[in-house]
């Protein structure tokens, strides 16, 4: 009897299971232009536009307000350079790693204007405010994976709070376990995560909060690489793009979008058709995505 009472009490006091409320609505927008197919190596958001850089060394400007996608070749890359990462600073400069040793400034008109030789090779590139956020060699367990500094010398580099380097059973595993992604910032906070984890570190480089967003996991989501992209918006909105378990044309796009809060207690999700490559822009109530078809998609909270 006591057991029955305690079970009934627990059921009454316990939180109801989180239901996946059908409160997100998606629509594909027939805008002006279409993003090309080659792999996107970086995304930056600034000055009302979202910028993408692809493997073919093309700069893609997406202006959500105008529903416009404009593509232009970037001149000035050397033939042996394979750029990775894209970051934007408040002066409107775009930055990429032309090589791990070379930071290059790209004008929004599509030309490289500066090349900066780096003291240590960098592996990923993001930005928060006027500081570039990056991972660099050496990658080691316990050492902060990210650092932040000015784009130009003296870099005034400082370790980024959160995401301490993780050990691996081999050097290859150690390197892959420390691959990091960062999403779209908001309110001076940047969300960053390890590729194989559902925990996201949200911080400004000095202080941070790391929280598990296990709600990103579910049927159809790759359990080994659950988070494809993330964006902070509004007063506490977190948009999560979950990586599809099934590959499309050899890559794994985002197959599901989840709207939650920073505590991870809210759970509204929608399966995306077509699947999405990246989050382009986000507000409290809507999230804009680039689909695998190269079109724009808007997902709204209803």
């Amino acid at each position, binding site marked *: 009897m006591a057991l029955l009472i305690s079970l009934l009490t627990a059921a009454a006091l316990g939180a109801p299971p989180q239901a996946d409320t059908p409160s997100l609505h998606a629509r594909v927008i027939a805008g002006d232009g279409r993003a090309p197919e080659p*792999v*996107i*190596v970086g995304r930056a958001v600034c000055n009302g536009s979202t910028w993408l850089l692809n*493997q073919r060394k093309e700069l893609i400007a997406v202006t959500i307000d105008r529903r416009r996608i404009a593509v232009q070749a970037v001149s000035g890359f050397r033939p042996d350079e*394979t750029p*990775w990462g894209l970051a934007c600073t408040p002066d409107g400069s775009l930055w990429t790693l032309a090589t*791990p040793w070379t930071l290059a400034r790209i004008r929004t008109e599509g030309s490289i204007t500066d090349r900066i030789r780096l003291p240590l*090779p960098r*592996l*990923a590139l993001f930005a928060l405010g006027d500081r570039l956020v990056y991972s660099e*060699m050496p990658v080691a367990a316990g050492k902060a994976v990210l650092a932040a500094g000015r784009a130009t010398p003296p870099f005034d580099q400082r370790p980024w709070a959160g995401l301490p380097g993780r050990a*691996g*059973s*081999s*050097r*290859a*595993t150690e*390197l*892959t*376990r420390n*691959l990091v*992604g960062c999403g779209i910032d908001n309110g001076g906070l940047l969300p960053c995560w390890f*590729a*194989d984890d559902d925990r996201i570190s949200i911080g400004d480089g000095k202080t941070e909060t790391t929280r598990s967003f296990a709600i990103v996991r579910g049927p159809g989501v790759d359990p*080994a*690489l659950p988070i*494809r992209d993330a964006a902070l918006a509004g007063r506490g909105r977190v948009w999560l793009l979950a990586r599809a378990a099934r590959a499309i044309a050899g*890559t*794994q*796009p985002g197959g599901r979008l989840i709207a939650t809060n920073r505590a991870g207690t809210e759970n509204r999700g929608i399966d995306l058709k077509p699947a999405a*490559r*990246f989050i382009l822009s986000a507000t409290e109530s809507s999230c804009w995505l680039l689909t695998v078809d190269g079109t724009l998609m808007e997902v709204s909270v209803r």
Partner: protein
Amino acid sequence: MERFLVNGLVRLGTLVLAAVLVVGSSRPGEAAVACTTDLADCYLDAATIDSFWYRWAAGLDCELAFIGCARYTIMGI
């Protein structure tokens, strides 16, 4: 003689490391199996370089190439 022994030990260590790289891979490394194989081969080539610093630099290049491959496979879309 001493230099010969040191070089030999470093090369042996690199060979062992290369073997461990292949055996020890796991997800998300599974997504980058080809990258891991390339890394092991690259380490083996680097191990044949006589100069310590050139060998170290070659090893670093191996890791940068591996990361470039792995992040493309895992993060790129």
